[in-house]
């Protein structure tokens, strides 16, 4: 804090000085977001944390506005959403922004996660930063799942039925847990009400965990594409103006793509079946979750055993928690790990294959392909990472960031 060490900061403006002396928000902002030494060699992958934050704020803003017009009762939920689309001024826009925003929030977070995995941002001393990130990811998935139930379309209802029924696979307590989730004997009004309450609550919990995530980041500073620590001021630049401007630019480009979808193809990423009001007596031919859940859905269905599938699905996220300890390599960035680099790309391809399998009915070739892809996913985390770190010969690391940047300019 400003007053406990060093010279107190000086502000020209007397009002700002007065406030800062009592609650040092201004000197905090100066330190953490102005002068903060940031590696000078960021690439555009480093924009996606800021982009994700912008999307979080956007989702909360559009969500609160939707909440002023939505009715969380099974007889009125679907119609209240249609009223928002047709009768509420600008309602169609707010709804499409929220719907498309969820997809783009996940796009930003998946790119952000890829950056972390490729460049070794999860390694010491950033293990807890990474774990906080996985917690945010889990909270996002819970929020998105409950949010999708609220319009009470066919996919809302049946997606809710399938995913809540999963928990009955847990031995002994499974059925009780499902009853507690449902508040009854099936997904019905009590379920809708509690999902609405939690969907409104969780984003604010996400905000709190994001704050912890950013505080944890600022303890040791950001990683960088070379994966080597900054050795002095020649390796860093002040966060403002270099990365305020670069992030600002990246956010703008991202928002342009987002606006393109929200205005011109808002239903492209969604499922048409959700425009049919929920019918508890008729199951749609294909129950499919939103695209960002497809890889996990494929893993769930790949295991022929009910409990096995549930364990595999949650296991796919659990391995992320322990990633810092699975990877034994002392080198952070995949730029200097020639073998691991290729396996990262194969992993991305594997996740996409899983996604395609998840989108299709589990028939024909999709079954063995999903099983192989699931096996490969766990092979990557549980076998490849621990072994590769020990046997791989990394490329020589540059002496410093400045060195590498200047050499690149000269050569």
């Amino acid at each position, binding site marked *: 804090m400003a007053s406990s060490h060093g010279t107190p900061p000086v502000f020209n403006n007397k009002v700002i000085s007065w406030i800062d002396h009592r609650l040092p928000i201004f000197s905090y902002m100066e330190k953490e977001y102005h002068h903060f030494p940031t590696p000078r060699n960021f690439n555009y992958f480093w924009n996606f944390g800021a982009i994700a934050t912008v999307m979080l704020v956007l989702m909360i*803003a559009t969500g609160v*506005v939707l909440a*002023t*017009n939505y009715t969380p009762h099974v007889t009125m939920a679907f119609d209240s959403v249609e*009223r928002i689309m*047709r*009768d*509420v*001024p*600008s*309602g169609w*826009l*707010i709804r499409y922004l929220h719907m498309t925003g969820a997809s783009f929030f996940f796009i930003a977070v998946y790119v952000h996660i890829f950056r972390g995995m490729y460049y070794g941002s999860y390694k010491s001393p950033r293990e807890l930063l990474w774990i906080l990130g996985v917690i945010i990811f889990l909270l996002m998935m819970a929020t998105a799942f409950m949010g999708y139930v609220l319009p009470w379309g066919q996919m809302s209802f049946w997606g809710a039925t399938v995913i809540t029924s999963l928990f009955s696979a847990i031995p002994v307590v499974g059925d009780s847990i499902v009853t507690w989730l449902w508040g009854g004997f099936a997904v019905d009004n009590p379920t809708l009400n509690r999902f609405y309450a939690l969907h409104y609550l969780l984003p604010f919990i996400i905000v709190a965990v994001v704050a912890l995530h950013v505080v944890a980041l600022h303890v040791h500073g950001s990683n960088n594409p070379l994966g080597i620590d900054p050795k002095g001021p020649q390796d860093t630049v002040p966060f403002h103006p270099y990365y305020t401007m670069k992030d600002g630019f990246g956010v703008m480009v991202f928002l342009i793509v987002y606006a393109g979808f929200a205005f011109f193809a808002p239903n492209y990423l969604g499922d048409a079946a959700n425009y049919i009001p929920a019918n508890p007596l008729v199951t749609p031919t294909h129950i499919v979750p939103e695209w960002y859940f497809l890889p996990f859905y494929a893993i769930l269905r790949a295991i022929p055993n009910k409990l096995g599938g549930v364990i595999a699905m949650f296991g796919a996220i659990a391995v992320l928690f322990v990633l810092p300890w699975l990877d034994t390599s002392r080198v952070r960035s995949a730029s200097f790990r020639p073998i691991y680099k290729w396996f990262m790309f194969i992993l991305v391809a594997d996740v996409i294959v899983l996604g395609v399998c998840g989108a299709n009915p589990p028939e024909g070739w999709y079954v063995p392909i999903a099983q192989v892809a699931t096996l490969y996913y766990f092979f990557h985390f549980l076998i490849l990472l621990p072994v590769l770190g020990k046997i791989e010969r990394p490329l020589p690391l540059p002496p410093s960031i400045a060195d590498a940047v200047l050499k690149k300019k000269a050569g």
Partner: protein
Amino acid sequence: MATASIPAGGHSDPTRRDFLMVATGAMGAIGTIAVAWPFINNLNPAADTLALSTVEVNVAPVQVGQAITVKWRGKPLFIRHRTPEEIKAADEVPMSELRDPQTDNSRVTDTAKKVRPEWLIMIGVCTHLGCVPLGNNPGDPKGEYGGWFCPCHGSMYDTSGRIRKGPAPLNLAIPGYLFTSDTLVRVG
């Protein structure tokens, strides 16, 4: 980048950087307004609320001396078919006696500038603190001026709905209305 000499104590010529800063700032401001607009517009009344904002009343069944109350925009609308005595009493009140001076004629003119003194159409909300005054139903107390009486704090309105006694500051409000025929009136 063009080098600009900075004379002591004065402005240098605007540089390209200055232009970019101002241009970016202006675009940022326009962008912010463009994003904020739908969120604020969203607070406006929705189509279903707007649909209820106009009401058409058939006043043919209202006898001379009778009054009806119609719900309009969530509030009571008083429609009284005034007797010739009530009209005469309203006309004869001098402006100096009125807290909120308004001629009776001006209070019975529709939006097409046609005067129909026999039809008094007002919003039945007391201008003091918002109670609904009595006087529309037969047997209601009408106060000392033969119009309406507000039981909450004792405001009394005359046969033109103008405040004469009690704490209310203004006359009962007249909404914009149009007689689309002799017996059909559209309010709002």
